[in-house]
């Protein structure tokens, strides 16, 4: 249910502490049948019910929740932090309980890994623990590193093992699973049970449906069957997986992780439909894990996602489509795309392709964090004296997650794409979605200068840097696309990610006829934008538009500044290098040996400083300037969506005036008493009335999507920015640490 558990799986050191939890789970699983299971199950059920349905269950569940929760914690007396936490949750008000409950499993695991995590995650804001976080800066970083190293190891995956836990589960309790399948509502039954390979994938579906079912039936007395399902997916899933793997001769931790991911996601499915907040919280850590962020992001992500999730939860009870939507959103967390490329000769490239294929298949469902961390092979090929940058789009989406992702045929696949394909994708997406008010993430701009440099083909550092820069930009672009719930559904996106060969994108050349047409279109758009005077009915939009414009300006300014910072830092590094050489010379001609040594040491230090400055400069430009450039482009498309809204409004207004005219003419005809034409006029009016309502509906729809999109965009923005800035700060931190180390040497 939470990533902290997953984290502990990756960290051998922490595993020992988690043990109590696992053992508790083992007990329940190891016992063949019901009676023993029943007891905790009941409790868990309450717990889960509560977590999914807090808003409606309210008082009774809250009362019930207190005791099971405490008991759960008693079973897993991992650390003091847990107990503190229990106290907290016990004494807390109804509203915060939802949060605390969600935190519970996280807590026990987190307590083992780092108490900070817990303290930051604590919603009631226990200041004492909160401040504790400040006192122990080291732990946070350690976690981060540990994660990274754990992610680094890969082991082959065997599928039967992968499914073992669930299969075990099914064996252990046939009636429950049957029950699970029965109540699954229609939308989740789209995919009937399939060969064992799909078992895992199916189960979550059903479970997902099950959770929803449970939601609808929440007021009914608890049924053992549904209970089991719930328990399985939310809490037991993880421990089940763990002991199963252990039994299997302590199989690779890899699989363990697999299973945890799988079960966790199934839990997510339930969370997504049921408890929005739950989804948010879980999504946070997972995502966090993927991104390999320090643990504190965990809380941050939770915060940022929570509102949407809450909304989804609110809506889920009424509309199914919304449920699907939420699911899609949840899916996006898992769909991480990596884009790779490198410079290689064709032959080497082919070789690399094959070698790269192996690890990727073995890694399959491994969270793409690992993939991300490993820069894969990719190619810059010279074909017929024409240099193209091929980009490997490597998707590793675990299909076990959700139905929406079942649309991908295989779990992992790698395709090669040209830069223009990216542009083509963008064109297609804008054509389709922009009029509806969606914010389509823009791809990086075409840089003729840089490209020519690469084409001219010197293997110098600047072209390598250019390629790397572009790779990173494209990767971010793709990630934005797949993170978008609606865009991910788009067949073009899927095609782009999956299909071996894409038809060559047309009209993406900057200097072609199509490009010219596009420019023309843009010009006319600009003119019409100026002519349309929209009297804004919605204050929100007006404010937002102003905000966006202001933000755009500020971003541009900031970008310029950061660029100059980069330039200056590069200058600094250059000058430092000069100075270091000069000092070295001075040292060599110094006749006092001690001083000479000191000077040469100084030269060395300055040399290192120079490297540091250089690193900082590239860090500035990569993680800061690039990010800002991205956002400048994104803001452009946000504005575009505002424009589209305006256009829709314009259409509506036009239709209304037209209707007015028709009505007037009808009145005239009526007055002139011309019955033959009257009929036609009436038809016209009816037609235009329909149009007006349609356009009005369109406008409303576009407005609401724009609104939703902007909210989403802002949330993403905050999240992204925080992440990047923290990354940046960490880089600076490292740099400064090294500086102090260097200075020590003098």
């Amino acid at each position, binding site marked *: 249910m939470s990533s902290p558990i997953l984290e502990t799986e990756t960290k051998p050191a922490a595993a020992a502490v988690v043990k109590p939890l696992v053992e508790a789970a083992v007990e329940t699983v190891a016992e063949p049948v019901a009676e023993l299971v029943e007891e905790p199950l009941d409790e868990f059920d309450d717990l889960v019910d509560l977590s999914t349905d807090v808003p409606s269950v309210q008082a009774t569940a809250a009362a019930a929740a207190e005791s099971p929760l405490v008991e759960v914690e008693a079973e897993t007396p991992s650390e003091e932090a847990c107990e503190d936490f229990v106290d907290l949750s016990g004494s807390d008000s*109804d*509203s*915060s309980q939802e*949060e605390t409950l969600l935190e519970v499993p996280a807590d026990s695991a987190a307590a083992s890994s780092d108490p900070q995590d817990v*303290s930051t*995650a*604590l*919603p009631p*804001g226990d200041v004492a623990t*909160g401040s504790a*976080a*400040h006192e122990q*800066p080291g732990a*946070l970083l350690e976690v981060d590193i540990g994660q990274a190293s754990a992610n680094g190891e890969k082991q082959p995956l065997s599928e039967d093992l992968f499914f073992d836990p669930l299969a075990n589960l099914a064996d252990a309790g046939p009636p429950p699973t049957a029950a699970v399948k029965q109540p699954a509502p229609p939308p989740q039954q789209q995919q009937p049970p399939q060969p064992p390979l799909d078992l895992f994938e199916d189960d979550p579906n059903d479970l997902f449906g099950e959770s929803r079912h449970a939601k609808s039936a929440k007021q009914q007395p608890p049924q053992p069957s549904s209970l089991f399902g719930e328990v399985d997916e939310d809490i037991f899933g993880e421990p089940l997986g763990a002991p199963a793997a252990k039994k299997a001769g302590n199989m690779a931790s890899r699989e363990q992780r697999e299973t945890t991911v799988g079960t966790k996601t199934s839990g997510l499915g339930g969370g997504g439909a049921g408890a929005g*907040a739950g989804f948010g919280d879980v999504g946070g850590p997972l995502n966090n894990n993927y991104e390999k962020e320090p643990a504190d992001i965990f*809380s*941050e992500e939770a*915060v940022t996602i*929570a*509102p949407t999730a*809450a909304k989804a939860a*609110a809506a889920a009870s009424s509309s199914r489509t919304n449920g699907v939507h939420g699911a899609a959103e949840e899916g996006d967390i898992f769909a991480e795309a990596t884009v790779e490329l490198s410079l290689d000769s064709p032959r080497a490239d082919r070789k690399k392709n094959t070698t790269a294929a192996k690890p990727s298949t073995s890694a399959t469902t491994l969270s793409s964090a690992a993939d991300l961390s490993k820069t894969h092979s990719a190619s810059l090929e010279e074909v017929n004296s024409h240099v193209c940058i091929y980009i490997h789009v490597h998707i590793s989406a675990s299909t076990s997650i959700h139905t929406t992702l079942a649309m991908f045929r295989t779990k992992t696949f790698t395709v090669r794409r040209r830069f223009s394909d990216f542009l083509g994708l963008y064109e297609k997406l804008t054509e389709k979605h922009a009029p509806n008010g969606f914010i389509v993430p823009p791809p990086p701009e075409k840089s003729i200068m840089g490209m020519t440099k690469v084409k001219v083909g010197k293997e110098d550092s600047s072209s390598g840097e250019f390629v790397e820069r572009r790779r990173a930009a494209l990767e971010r672009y793709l990630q934005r696309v797949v993170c978008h719930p609606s865009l991910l559904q788009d067949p073009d996106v899927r095609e782009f990610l999956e299909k071996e060969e894409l038809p060559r994108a047309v009209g993406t050349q900057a200097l072609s006829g199509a490009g010219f047409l596009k420019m023309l279109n843009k010009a006319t758009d600009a003119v019409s934008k100026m002519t349309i005077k929209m009297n804004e009915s919605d204050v929100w939009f007006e404010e937002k538009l102003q905000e966006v414009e202001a933000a755009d300006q*500020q971003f541009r300014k*900031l970008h310029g500044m*950061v660029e*100059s*910072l980069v330039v*200056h*830092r590069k*200058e*600094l590094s*250059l*000058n*430092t290098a*000069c*100075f270091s*050489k*000069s*000092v070295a*010379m*001075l040292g060599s*001609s*110094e*006749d006092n040996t001690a*001083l000479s040594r*000191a*000077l040469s040491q*100084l030269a060395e230090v300055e040399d290192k400083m120079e490297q540091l400055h250089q690193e900082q400069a590239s860090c500035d430009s990569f993680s800061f300037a690039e990010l800002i450039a991205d956002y400048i482009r994104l803001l452009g498309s946000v504005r575009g969506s505002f424009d589209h809204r305006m256009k829709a409004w314009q259409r509506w207004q036009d239709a209304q005036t037209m209707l007015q005219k028709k009505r007037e003419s009808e009145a005239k005809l009526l007055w002139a008493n011309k019955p033959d034409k009257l009929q036609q006029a009436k038809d016209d009016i009816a037609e235009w009335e329909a149009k007006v309502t349609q356009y009005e509906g369109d406008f409303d729809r576009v407005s609401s999507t724009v609104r939703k999109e902007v909210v989403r965009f802002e949330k993403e923005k*905050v999240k992204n920015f*925080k992440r990047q*800035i*923290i990354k940046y*700060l960490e880089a600076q*931190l490292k740099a*400064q*640490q090294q*500086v*102090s180390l260097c200075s*020590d040497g*003098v």
Partner: protein
Amino acid sequence: VYFTITLSLTRSVSVDLNNDTALIIDIPDALCERDKVKFTVHTKTTLSSFQKPDFSVPRQHEDFIWLHDTLVETEEYAGLIIPPAPPKPDFESPREKMHKLGEGEATMTKEEYTKMKQELEAEYLAVFKKTVQVHEVFLQRLSSHPILSKDRNFHIFLEYDQDLTVRRKNAKEMFGGFFKNMVKTADEVIISGIKEVDDFFEQEKTFLLDYYSKIKDSTIKAEKMTRSHKNVADDYIHISATLSNPPFNTGPVWCRFPQKVEGRVASDQELKLTELLRYYMRDIQAAKDLLYRRARALADYENSNKALDKARLKSRDIPQAEEQQQLCLQKFDKLSESGKRELTSFKGRRVVAFRKNLIEMAELEIKHAKVMLTMIYRCLFDNAYAIMKLALNVVTSRPFP
């Protein structure tokens, strides 16, 4: 713009001086008006040659230059390393920057502007301080020197309580000085061909020549480095100002610290490293001048030898030539002797000063890096803390159906 600054007596460059309490000189106060800087030179002494034990006089930069020139021109001091004259105060660059800032005021936010202004003021102050200190060091070097401290002109400089009203050099003299320099350089080239009689001086000469070029190079590079460091610091000002504005309310904190730290690193480097190099560049120039004077004396001696030979050949004016030769020899010997002493002490002084300054610089750098580290840590955790608070808000304010 008039402003008086009372200076704290931290020295930018520590020159190793013997702490002779007989004559203590400092510049406790200075007044800057346009391009003129008036220093108050304060003297405390136990020497009977002074009328009072404690007195202070107002002096200008030109007076210092006059003192230096008279010392250089005094024949008796040819065998000494005359402390280098303090450089002319240069307030142009900060002033120019201030001007630019005033022009660009419209394009900046208020916060940015005030920050930049503060920064410039700090820079101006630093330049001012530096100038004062350099002048002070010059006087202290003189006062600590056993021979130069007894110089009459020096005493007049310290004691005469009226304005010295040193006549400024007129254009002709300026040109004359330039011409003299040219001649000297040419002469240096000519006499460099003369065979050295003393190994010590031979070595010293090659070393100083080499060292001078290297240290000059280093100084230029160090200046460049500090300048670009300052640029980086300035960039941080802009960025932090922008970041604290509406769309990014999030993180102004983390950007301000780097700026401060980078700025401090830059100014410290400037103070400890660049100034050190600069000062010793000038000092070595002074030492080189000493060597030149000695070499000149040697050349004179050899010339007089030749003249004596000629006179003997012609059997005319032999006593005069002999006298001349004796004189030259004496002068040369004296120069050599005192030169040797001076150069040896100079070497020791240089090494000590370098060591001290380098250690100080390293300490400062470590300090700055540590400050930076703690700042970043704090920013990271502030961030975490803010997120937590935000989470609290979300949790408590979330509407429940």
